[in-house]
């Protein structure tokens, strides 16, 4: 099988409100940044382009097509889109390269979540007859998941606050983070509940922004003469949309994807997991079997800034960054989609 690697990654700042900037204006600086990293000038210089976004966030059918304006699609390019996080655009690109239909691919994800009421917008991705009709928001669903864990003694509110404090502290080193700072578990526990048992700090913020990445065959990376991190494992699994039939205290699909991606086949120096709520980071750490030897979410994770439709591919980008910087030899990136960690993707990256 052809070896595939990540060669470039860039992410915008996570902003609580990008103001007048439209989606194309959020995407373009990230595209320019990744072109520069590999020394190309436009989307014409890669074989395939795939993006991830969600029309519900823009509130218009086929809104994603406007994003193509950022590419300059004339003369024609091979282009595709997933109505998912761009981590799945990366997955499609990996398949395209594996099939021999491309040697390189540009991936980008973007969203302006701030204009709408995100937890309510996301309620419309739920079962259309049983749940969307009730406008059950995503924070409340996560709160019910957290309560199951708390009442079964699997976590404490202190464990959840410790995840938040760790995220805020690590985010001090991440200039793109939206929330960062020194805080303590005690101070966080003194905050009132928001959607009980969750506090506001247990929930990721709403952020606007975009991310871009370039992947290619190892041969192409050598031709470009750029540092790279190999993708040595990638898999994604989904669970039923019926929340009542899932074990919400575990992430079965993450375990399945991790096994298929070969997470346990070597040491995990660094891991970036997409946990929009503090208790979900604990679920994921356990599902991925990450121990004290692993630096978990050195970027601060999405509790420090959550770019809808881009945070998943950003987790892969953050691991890539640390591998090419020589800070880690092998890392794991996780992406999620759907309520209460319904759909999960696990990617293993290794140094050249």
């Amino acid at each position, binding site marked *: 099988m052809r070896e595939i690697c990540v060669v470039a990654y860039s992410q915008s700042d996570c902003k609580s409100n990008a103001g007048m900037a439209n989606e194309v204006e959020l995407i373009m600086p990230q595209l320019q940044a990744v072109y520069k990293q590999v020394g190309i000038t436009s989307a014409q210089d890669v074989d395939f382009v795939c993006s991830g976004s969600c029309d519900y966030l823009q509130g218009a059918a086929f809104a994603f097509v406007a994003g193509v304006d950022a590419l300059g699609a004339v003369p024609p390019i091979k282009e595709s889109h997933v109505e998912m996080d761009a981590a799945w655009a990366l997955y499609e690109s990996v398949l395209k390269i594996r099939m021999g239909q491309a040697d390189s691919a540009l991936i980008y994800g973007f969203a302006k979540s701030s204009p709408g009421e995100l937890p309510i917008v996301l309620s419309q991705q739920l079962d259309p*007859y049983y749940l969307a009709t009730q*406008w059950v928001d995503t924070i*409340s669903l996560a709160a019910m998941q957290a309560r199951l864990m708390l009442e079964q003694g699997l976590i404490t509110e202190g464990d959840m606050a410790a995840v938040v404090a760790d995220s805020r502290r690590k985010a001090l080193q991440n200039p793109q983070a939206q929330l960062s700072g020194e805080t303590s578990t005690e101070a966080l526990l003194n905050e009132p*509940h928001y959607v009980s048992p969750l506090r506001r700090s247990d929930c990721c913020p709403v952020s606007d922004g975009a991310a871009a990445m370039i992947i290619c065959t190892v041969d192409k990376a050598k031709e470009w003469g750029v540092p790279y991190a190999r993708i040595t494992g990638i898999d994604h699994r989904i669970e039923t949309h019926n929340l*009542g*039939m899932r074990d919400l205290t575990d992430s079965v699909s993450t375990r399945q994807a991790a096994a298929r991606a070969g997470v346990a086949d070597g040491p995990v120096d660094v891991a970036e997991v997409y946990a929009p709520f503090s208790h979900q980071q604990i679920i994921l750490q356990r599902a991925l079997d990450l121990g004290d030897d692993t630096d978990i979410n050195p970027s601060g994770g999405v509790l420090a800034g959550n770019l809808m439709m881009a945070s998943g591919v950003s987790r892969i980008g953050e691991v890539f960054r640390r591998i090419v910087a020589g800070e880690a030899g092998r890392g794991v990136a996780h992406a999620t989609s759907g309520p209460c960690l319904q759909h999960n993707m696990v990617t293993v990256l290794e140094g050249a």
Partner: protein
Amino acid sequence: MSQPDLLKQPFELGFTYTRSTGPVVGRFLTGLRNREIIGNRASDGRVIVPPMEYDPVTADALDEFVPVSDEGVIVSWAWVSEPREAHPMEKPFAWAMIRLKGADVPMIHCVAAPEESAVSTGARVKARWVDEPRGYITDIACFELMGDAS
């Protein structure tokens, strides 16, 4: 010179089709119209409410329907102290996973309660129906706490 005839036609912006909910979801929604809650049996024997068309593990079509009670217990819940505009209640309320009597799999609906401390896991609840059910999940206006009376 006479006025030219203008061609006119009424136009209504909307979907020009109706959609069938099918034999499983439709059966459940029709049941609600009669204030009845109907589940179905999964491949492993568990009773699922609301019913599912296919088993999530075996992918078998599920067609054994089972009527269940409109009373149940809270399995987990979230307290919404600041209801959103789209939410079904204006006053603070709980979203809950409710296991109905006769069912194994909990369903998600809202629970009316005077305050957070009134709600607990294991608490018994009963559906409050709207005056004129139409075949929607919202025909159950909410669930209400049954208190200690049994």
